[in-house]
């Protein structure tokens, strides 16, 4: 077999455009998943049992079923039900965000519980209200401890994002297959986007390290 990368040159701009298309929804999905995951984590440690139970059930369902199924349900099945024709872009953000929030909430819950109970007591003794204490004292410490785990989740999300090619979203992955079909050669375009995915993940890893270093205030 002989590789010929010369043939994909005309398609390179088309494939590079996929970087932004992928990143666009990945960034939204990460933010959405992170915010929802934080809220879910707060529900899980709530003293109101029902709230905690609902958050646990949510997590259980989203971790217990395939992501691609969740994506298909949101893109194909929900529109049948409610009659709203959802775009691939919005479906992707929703599916990945909802799914990611389940994992993120578990990570953050563990992070919160790992913060010394004395921190809560010190804040309470100063008269700091619960919400303020969570925001200013507990969550910042929890986040610092769980940053590596969170980064891992974001990296997984970035890689799994290739699944959205199955609902016709023109992301990196989809573009590689389009080019492959055009050229009757799959290896070169797949390898090309493979390298791009790898660089994206490396980029995320480096950002994670930098943030970690900036947060390393204690010991």
């Amino acid at each position, binding site marked *: 077999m002989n590789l010929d990368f010369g043939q994909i040159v005309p398609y390179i701009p088309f494939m590079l455009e996929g970087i932004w298309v992928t990143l666009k929804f990945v960034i939204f999905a990460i933010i959405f998943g992170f915010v929802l995951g934080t809220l879910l984590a707060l529900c899980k440690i709530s003293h109101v049992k029902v709230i905690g139970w609902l958050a646990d059930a949510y997590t259980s369902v989203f971790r217990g079923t395939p992501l691609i199924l969740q994506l298909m349900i949101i893109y194909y099945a929900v529109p049948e039900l409610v009659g709203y024709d959802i775009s691939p872009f919005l479906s992707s953000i929703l599916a990945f965000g909802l799914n990611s929030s389940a994992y993120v909430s578990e990570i953050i819950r563990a992070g919160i519980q790992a913060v*010394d109970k*004395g921190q809560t*007591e*010190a804040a*309470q*003794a*100063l*008269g*700091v209200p619960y919400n303020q204490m969570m925001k200013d004292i507990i969550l910042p410490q929890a986040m*610092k401890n769980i940053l590596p785990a969170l980064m891992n989740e974001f990296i997984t999300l970035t890689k799994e994002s290739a699944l959205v090619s199955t609902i016709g979203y023109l992301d990196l992955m989809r573009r590689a297959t389009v080019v492959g079909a055009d050229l009757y050669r799959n290896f070169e375009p797949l390898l090309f986007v493979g390298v791009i995915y790898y660089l994206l993940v490396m980029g995320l890893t480096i950002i994670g390290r930098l943030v970690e270093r900036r947060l390393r205030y204690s010991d």
Partner: protein
Amino acid sequence: MIKVKNLHKSFGNNEVLKDITTDISKGEVVSIIGPSGSGKSTFLRCLNLLEKPTKGSVLVHNQNITDPKTNIMKIREQIGMVFQHFYLFPHMTVLENLTYAPLKVKGESKQVAQSKARDLLAKVGLTDKETAFPSSLSGGQKQRVAIARALAMEPELMLFDEPTSALDPEMVKEVLDVMKDLAKSGMTMAVVTHEMGFAKEVADRVLFLDHGMLIEEGNPEQFFDQPKTERAKGFLEKIL
């Protein structure tokens, strides 16, 4: 300023405090001593409701803090607490540790909060540590910051739970000195301590707890020289 009446506290079936009744008046320094596990910390923590009493009442300025209608946050603002393990906020500088609650809880302006914080840091001898993070401080320095942090809320009462027990011996004095100054300034203080020297010298009154009961209370000279109860005698023989 604090009236404790028939205070009981149980954890499950374990009755940790049994029918404690006592008062702390304004400007008084009370030392709480007793064997480990006798309920000293629990007693102290009932005074600012870090533990919820099972029975009985705690009145702060004649307000029953166990009454669900009482705004416990407002009460806690008036009561400072210093812990054995400091519990400084590790992600904040020393100055931020001191100004956080005044800014967020009392709504003080940044300027006022910072200038008061600097005064307090001067008082505890840590002016040069303003921008340091807690992890870079020694135990004695951490505890002095913790005391200053509590004082920044301008409390009327300060609770100390074994403030020197986690310190290396050479750092005990610097913390006790700060506490002595505080006592001299007229602060009302309740201090759980194993430092009998401090109790003798600084306290106006000693409470002796054993097995969750207030066995004996009195002025330090009398308590240390002529304890009235066998249990107090036994305890003092063991530690002195």
